[in-house]
């Protein structure tokens, strides 16, 4: 047994209203706990300062996956396994299936949640690049009501978000992308378990051989999951048979700000992020009418 369990207090609210009330009464005191796959690691090692936990395990309403005519809404407690297996996600959001598939392995995917992956705020998480590429929105709920925020505005700095202490991230919404090109690639030490060195997701919609819509999301190359706006600008409006590869790669270098850390170096990440982008654009260029 690893040391002693730190002295702490746990509440298990039976409803969202009860959870929000607890947060509102003592803002910042209660740390929400979803699947535990991130929090339990520093907690058990005695490296977590929190002593009050709000276990969300009974909030079954947040486990729903609700597709409709215009898109799909995920409850924050949807797991990676749920994402991988859902027919709508498999059909319309293949990048998100890939994200879920390369996060940990089976046991982590059964417990880890989409909402937890976002709130944990790691720039190396693997669902954020896909959510950025699909232009997702997140719902932040406090006792006074809910607000929707574009996911790309959610992270404000390393492990910092716009989530207020009295709010929970409750739902994630993705509008159904038009038929188009989807690309996802994670570069890690091995296929399973490893945390990403570089992760890139791209979605593009093509009309008459020209890129009409394009979003690129990256992980592990900046303090936050990053949308590569300059890359998108370099590609938008360009015909598939003349995509500006060098220009896009240069734009990416301006968008990202990778660092040296235990998993990789800034130099490696710059080179590999550029290579993965060029691979994505080459596959886009040779895709049939921009569909894959």
């Amino acid at each position, binding site marked *: *047994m*690893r040391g002693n*369990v*730190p*002295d*702490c*207090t*746990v*509440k*298990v609210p039976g409803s969202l209203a009860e959870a929000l009330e607890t947060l509102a009464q003592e803002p910042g005191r209660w740390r929400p*706990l979803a*699947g*535990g*796959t991130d929090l*339990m*690691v520093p*907690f*058990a*090692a005695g490296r977590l300062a929190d002593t009050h*936990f709000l*276990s969300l*395990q009974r909030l079954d309403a947040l486990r729903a996956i609700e597709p409709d005519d215009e898109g799909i809404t995920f409850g924050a407690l949807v797991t990676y*396994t749920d994402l991988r297996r859902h027919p709508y996600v498999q059909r319309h959001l293949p990048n998100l299936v890939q994200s879920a598939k390369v996060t*940990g*392995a*089976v*046991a*982590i995917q*059964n*417990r880890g949640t989409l909402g937890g992956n976002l709130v944990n705020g790691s720039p190396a998480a693997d669902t954020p690049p896909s959510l950025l590429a699909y232009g997702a929105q997140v719902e932040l709920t406090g006792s006074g009501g809910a607000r929707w925020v574009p996911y790309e505005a959610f992270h404000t700095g390393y492990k910092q978000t716009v989530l207020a202490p009295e709010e929970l991230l409750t739902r994630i919404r993705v509008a159904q992308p038009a038929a188009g090109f989807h690309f996802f690639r994670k570069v890690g030490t091995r*296929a*399973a*378990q490893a945390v990403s060195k570089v992760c890139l997701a791209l979605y593009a919609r093509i009309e008459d051989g020209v890129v009409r819509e394009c979003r690129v999301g990256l992980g592990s190359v900046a303090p936050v999951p990053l949308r590569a706006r300059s890359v998108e600008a370099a590609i938008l409006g360009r015909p598939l048979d003349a995509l500006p590869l060098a220009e896009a790669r240069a734009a990416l270098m301006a968008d990202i700000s990778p660092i040296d850390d235990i998993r990789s170096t800034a130099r490696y990440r710059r080179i590999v992020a550029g290579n993965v982008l060029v691979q994505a654009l080459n596959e886009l260029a040779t895709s049939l009418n921009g569909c894959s």
Partner: protein
Amino acid sequence: MNGDRMRLDVTVNGQARSVQVLPMARLLDVLREELELPGTKEGCGEGECGACSVIMDGKLVNSCLVPAVQAQGAELLTIEGLARDGELSGLQRAFVACNGAQCGFCTPGMVLASVDLLRRCAHPTEAEIREGLAGNICRCTGYVKIVDAVQAAAAGRERP
């Protein structure tokens, strides 16, 4: 639950059990220390190695990452629950027959991950086996004999 113990009710290997535990105690420690089932091993304690894998409510989990409070009411299957009347399960016999264990430390987790895989997919391909066991690390062998064992069990070559 103010730093106090809670009563945890679980069904472990078919048996109803109640223990007093701290709500944030790891399920791994509850199994080993309170329920006296030391077959589940601690490797990394960080959800990386799979040695502590058990099946909770039909799903494979890393017991080192499950706080006791989230196991309330759960049905648990550990390595101790596989043999019947002292007789190893077909999958366990396949691990023995194929030399799928060396030092044996990863074996309980490997076996539980294999049980989970074979429940979801009765006849997995080699790629499916490797993905199903990707969260379980063995530091002695290669993985070849472990994959052989799962294939043998799936093919019924080690039927009870």
